[in-house]
């Protein structure tokens, strides 16, 4: 159990800058999620913490002790590898016992057995213990890899997409299990994922990583409601947030936006909000990127007041709800709809934005400007912080 700090860590592989000045401060007993697209450098961060990769620059600290020159064996970390890395010549049981049988973490066999049985039970794989890794499916291997980490009492658990290969039902069960387990074990955990749901469900805090840099660190809510730029906004949320170029007009009494839909201008008045209005009067933008989540886009198949017209591009189910994608010229809008609608492709659909949930981004820099109700979200984040 330890606090993990990274200070300005840089790592290059040949000409590729895998990590470009990563600074993190993971609190003791925190469940910290690294979230980002493939190739962002998430695994390299874990490798630097585990000691497998040596940072070119920067400092890795466990509880204020600089660990840069400590080899992986002496760091006491437990790691779940993305490709499992099970020892092929050993049975599942021996795989899980391997760390506890090493000279450094020597434990007596009775205790080892007890812990393995516990881990096997939580992972629902008691029947697999005698098998060799080659006799397991990918999902089973992944559970063994998890089990091998869980039997230990390390400074930190490092998990590299440990649920990626499980089937959906087991993944959901394990997600719940994992969160509870981590709370019970009282251990620090750094968890890499590219699944937005996992990141939101598990992370006490989430760090968004892109191209070797940290884009944003915050609680799931913070990042979801106040993404620091369009990249984060698009990453967090499924279906993806809609981002539409909008011209701003008006004065500090009343602002309205104009968007282009299939070549025609659509003007919408911005609801009054002290935060948004004062920000706009301060920076006076001509054009902004309007971010609006699919659940805040309302639709109708009849012409309605305040609705603008577009055509249906697709209608697909995503489980308990569906997504309508509407064609609006050079961009598309996604919106949430119930299942079982009879929607014909290319038919007309009428759309309205719930602008009081909008997020505004700088049209040039793509960075966050302001959102509706900002003050209450800041207050919410602060309240969580205090917990």
């Amino acid at each position: 159990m330890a606090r993990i700090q990274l200070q300005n860590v840089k790592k290059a592989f040949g000409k590729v800058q895998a990590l470009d000045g990563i600074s993190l401060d993971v609190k003791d007993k925190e469940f910290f999620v690294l979230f980002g697209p493939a190739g962002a450098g998430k695994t390299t961060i874990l490798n630097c913490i585990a000691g497998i990769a040596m940072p070119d620059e920067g400092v890795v600290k466990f509880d204020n002790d600089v660990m840069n020159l400590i080899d992986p064996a002496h760091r006491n970390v437990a790691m779940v590898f993305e490709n499992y890395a099970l020892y092929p010549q050993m049975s599942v049981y021996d795989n899980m016992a391997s760390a506890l049988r090493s000279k450094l973490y020597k434990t007596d066999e009775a205790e080892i057995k007890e812990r393995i049985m516990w881990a096997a039970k939580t992972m629902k794989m008691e029947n697999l213990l005698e098998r060799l890794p080659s006799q397991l499916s990918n999902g089973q291997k992944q559970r063994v890899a998890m089990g091998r980490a869980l039997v230990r009492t390390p400074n930190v658990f490092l998990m590299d997409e440990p649920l990626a290969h499980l089937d959906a039902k087991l993944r959901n069960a394990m997600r719940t299990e994992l969160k509870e387990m981590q709370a019970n074990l009282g251990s620090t955990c750094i968890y890499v994922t590219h699944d937005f749901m996992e990141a939101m469900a598990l992370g006490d805090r989430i760090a968004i990583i892109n191209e070797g840099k940290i884009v944003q660190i915050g609680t799931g809510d913070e990042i979801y409601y106040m993404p620091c730029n369009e990249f984060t906004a698009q990453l967090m949320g499924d279906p993806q947030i809609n981002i539409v170029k909008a011209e701003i007009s008006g004065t500090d009494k009343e602002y309205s936006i104009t968007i282009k839909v299939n070549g025609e201008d659509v003007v919408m008045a911005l609801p009054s909000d002290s935060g948004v209005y004062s920000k706009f009067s301060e920076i006076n933008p001509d054009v902004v990127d309007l971010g609006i989540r699919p659940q805040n886009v309302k639709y109708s198949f009849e012409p309605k007041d305040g609705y603008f017209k577009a055509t249906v591009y697709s209608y697909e189910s995503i489980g308990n709800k569906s997504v309508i994608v509407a064609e609006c010229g050079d961009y598309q809008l996604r919106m949430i709809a119930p299942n079982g609608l009879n929607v014909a492709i290319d038919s007309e659909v009428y759309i309205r934005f719930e602008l009081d949930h909008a997020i505004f981004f700088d049209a040039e820099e793509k960075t966050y400007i302001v959102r509706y109700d900002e003050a209450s979200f800041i207050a919410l984040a602060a309240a969580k912080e205090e917990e």
Partner: protein
Amino acid sequence: MKTGKQKVLDVLKNILLIIYAVFALFPLIWMILISFKSDTEVFTTTFVFNPTLANYQEVLLRSDYGRYILDSVIVSGGAVLVSIIVGVPAAYALARYNFPRKEDLAFQILSYKFAPEILVVLPLFMIYQKIGLYDSYVGLIWVYQLISLPLLIWVVRGYFEDISVEIEYAAQVDGYSWYQIFFKMLVPLIKPGLVSSALLAFIFAWNSFTFPLILSSNKVYPVTVAIMKYLGTDSAHYGQLAVASTVSALPAVIFALCIQKHLVRGLSFGAVKG
């Protein structure tokens, strides 16, 4: 149920295999037959003759044959041992580390096997004379590395490359030192490759003729060269020659039979996805 056509095919397949087996084994059988014949019967009989153990007595009891075999064992065994000690770490380095001109180096090692032995043996002869390695165990073991080392390095390197590097990382994280990882995790995984290539290297070294013929004389007398003794200038004792050859083939055969279960590949598959 097998159809009639399949049955015919099976029978045909077996007949072909039997023919091939006879073809492949016939020289061996012939040699063994000769080893039981007296000198007079060698040329006059084929399968019907009066078997005699005289040749065996002559070779095994009344000559230095035991010493020749022992020399062969020492030289070939020593060569393989040195190859393992040197070759396994070299193979690991070639598989895991990146350094400038790595592939060139690997290819150069392999290229030692390309050159005909006769090409290098004359300069080696002069060098060995000068530095005192001529007619010594060390000298032969050293030169046998040209035969055994490239083979071993290239086979074992392939095995190391098949082991995902994450397995090593996992073992490091589990608290093992590099040497523990190497012997506990990696050696079991490369064992099939190591055993099979060591066996092949042993057989190649055992069969080597040019090197011991020219680089040794009296003190070290491997069996391949010693067999020539039974070919006199005036008379050829084919019976004794056959005994010497038969017995000299035995160690390799026994060796191969003992470790054939290790010659199964496939242990390192399945632990890593993809």
